[in-house]
């Protein structure tokens, strides 16, 4: 406070000196030109000085210089010279008129200065609100929006600034403020009205409490200092900033609610498609089993032994297939539900491949599998059951969609272990490379084969759960190649056994 008084005092002295300098200059000019010009011209020179002072100096200095100019003209140039007496009544009228003109000019220019200053300030406020609106529109989170609002208020208000958000009238936790402040904030939010000096509500407060938003849409409140009853413009500005921040926060909340609603719709859609796909995959083999079993039950006496055998074999095969679909479905659900099921141990990929090839060989088309494993393959960490299921699904798929050889190879490429399954089947349609891994997608040639619906989706889920990846590419001369890439970690040490 001391500093600002000093500043005011020094500004006043500056004005006085400048006025004195202007008047001295006018007096000097009149004295130099005394012989050449009349008293009227000298009066004009003084008037010029007064107009200049009015325009350049504060109001008080301007008024001072107006009075000083009349006095100096009277003293130095109006006969009798060097006295303040006036000889002719005419001169007295002229001096009075000059004083009136000088005062009027200084009043008018002071008013002009005030207005242009007010215009400049209002322009600055409007500019701040504009850039605030732009910043808020770009805000990505509620915290960011509140931060932007806090900065905007700090720009205008010197005192501590507090901005809090609320949901359904309750202030968000984590606000560090006294009980009085919290009570005022709560009241401001609940009543959705400004509190503090000059508002008619809680005028004894030492700060303004401005709600963020109006009516039923209050999303928080701000507390700003200093607040004085006479600073209506400052209060309105705070309210304008609060309104913009409220809009920004409200927009972000709507956006969030909107996204959540869309995600929920999507989830339900996926679930519905999932159920439809699974029930299709389950119903088809069930239909075959029921048909064959009921035929055996009702017609056994009339069926030849070969037919009976065929039906029995069909029942067993369909039931096994049903088991596979169920396992794939369960595993996929388990993995997508958070994958807690992963039992990670050191695994030898050649062992896993060996066991699944051995199992698949016993099937009618198992002879088409050609396995080729690189030498000295590293161990990988993973769940043997899941990795075996992945490899089985890939090989099964290749056998199902092609008639020729199915190549299964495992090689190490730097820090990755690559397991590839290649076939010469119909291959993929362009653009299918990523879609085949979607849970319910069936590729070209899948119309007559069944059950690929979930198999590849599960394969990819398993690969991802192991920190690896699964991709597919089209082969140059037809067919496709699925490649599983697993990360190779530092190999474990083996102690020599006792």
């Amino acid at each position, binding site marked *: 406070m001391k500093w600002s008084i000093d500043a005011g005092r020094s500004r006043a002295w500056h004005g006085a000196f400048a006025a004195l300098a202007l008047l001295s200059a006018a007096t000097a000019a009149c004295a130099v030109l005394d012989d050449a010009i009349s008293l009227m011209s000298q009066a004009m020179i003084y008037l010029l000085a007064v107009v200049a002072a009015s325009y350049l100096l504060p109001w008080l200095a301007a008024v001072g210089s107006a009075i000083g100019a009349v006095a100096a003209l009277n003293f130095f140039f109006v006969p009798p010279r060097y006295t303040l007496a006036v000889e002719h009544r005419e001169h007295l009228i002229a001096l009075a008129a000059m004083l009136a003109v000088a005062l009027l000019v200084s009043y008018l220019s002071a008013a002009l200065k005030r207005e242009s200053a007010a215009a400049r300030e209002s322009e600055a406020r409007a500019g701040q609100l504009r850039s605030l609106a732009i910043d808020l529109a770009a805000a990505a989170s509620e915290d960011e929006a509140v931060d932007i609002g806090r900065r905007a208020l700090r720009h205008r208000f010197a005192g501590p600034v507090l901005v809090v958000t609320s949901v359904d009238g309750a202030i968000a936790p984590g606000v560090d403020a006294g009980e009085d402040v919290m009570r005022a904030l709560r009241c401001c939010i609940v009543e959705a009205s400004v509190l503090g000096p000059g508002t008619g509500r809680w005028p004894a407060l030492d700060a303004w409490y401005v709600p963020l938003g109006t009516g039923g849409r209050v999303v928080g409140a701000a507390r700003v200092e200093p607040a004085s009853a006479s600073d209506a413009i400052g209060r309105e500005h705070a309210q304008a900033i609060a309104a913009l921040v409220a809009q920004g926060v409200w927009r972000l909340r709507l956006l969030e609610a909107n996204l959540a609603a869309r995600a929920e719709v999507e989830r339900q859609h996926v679930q519905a498609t999932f159920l439809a796909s699974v029930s299709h995959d389950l119903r088809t083999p069930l239909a075959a089993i029921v048909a064959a079993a009921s035929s055996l039950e009702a017609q056994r006496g009339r069926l030849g032994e070969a037919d009976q055998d065929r039906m029995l074999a069909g029942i067993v095969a369909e039931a096994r297939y049903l088991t596979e679909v169920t396992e794939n479905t369960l595993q996929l659900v388990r993995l997508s539900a958070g994958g807690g099921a992963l*039992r990670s141990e*050191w695994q*030898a990929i050649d062992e896993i491949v*060996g*066991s699944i*090839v051995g199992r698949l060989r016993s099937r009618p088309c198992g002879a088409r599998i050609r396995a080729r*494993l690189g030498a000295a393959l590293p161990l990988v960490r993973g769940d043997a*059951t899941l990795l075996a299921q992945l490899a089985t699904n890939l090989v099964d798929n290749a056998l199902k969609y092609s008639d020729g050889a199915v190549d299964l190879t495992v090689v190490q490429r730097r820090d990755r272990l690559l397991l590839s399954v290649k076939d010469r089947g119909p291959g993929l349609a362009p653009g299918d490379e990523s879609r085949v891994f979607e849970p319910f997608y069936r590729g070209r040639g899948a119309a007559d084969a069944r059950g690929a619906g979930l198999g590849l989706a599960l394969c990819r889920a398993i690969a991802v759960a192991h920190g690896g990846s699964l991709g597919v590419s089209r082969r140059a001369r037809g067919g496709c190649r699925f490649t599983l890439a697993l990360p190779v970690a530092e190999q474990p040490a083996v102690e020599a*056994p006792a």
Partner: protein
Amino acid sequence: MSIKVLIVEDDREIRAVLRTALAAEGFDVLTAVSLSEATALLEHDPPDLIVLDLGLPDGDGAQLVRAVRSRSAMPILVASARHQEAERISLLDQGADDYLTKPFGVNELLARIRVALRHRGTTLQPATTRYARGDLLIDVETYRVEREGRPLHLTPTEFKLAARLVRAAGRVVTHRQLLADVWGAEHVLDTHYLRLYMGQLRTKLEAVPSEPSHLLTETGVGYRLVVD
């Protein structure tokens, strides 16, 4: 006197089918729908072999396995769904003899029962020490290992591993059991030992190591030496 098999299974259909299938093979079949019923039966009419379903309504089968093991070498086969892997392994580690993954075929069940009964009474008869199948011969007593008539040299660890599997030929041996018996109890979690040594053993014992015909991997559970 025919061999008595106890089937502990809560599903009526499966129970009925198994009863019919085993009776057709000449077994004397007892059934129980719960662990408590099975326990009561064990007291009054002890069978020669148990087929135990996992996920019975009145608790897990571990109690039953422990109770049986505390007084007899009666073979126990565990039947479980694929997702009950952890439970199945723990039962094997606690002394169950072998397992079947549901759904299983009657052929598989009969094969497992045959192997289990062959090992029955190993406490009385000398344990299996000789494995001869196809091109492979392992004789634990004489430290002889031959493939296609030619002797093979195994390191001491490889031999211990092979011998442990021969002792349980036809039955699954869990990772934990192998690690404890070959390397010692402090190594039961070091499954990578098994991966490495089993790989070495296969290169020596198998004609096509990448597609083994004798030394099979029971994915996620352990290893099994195949018998015919």
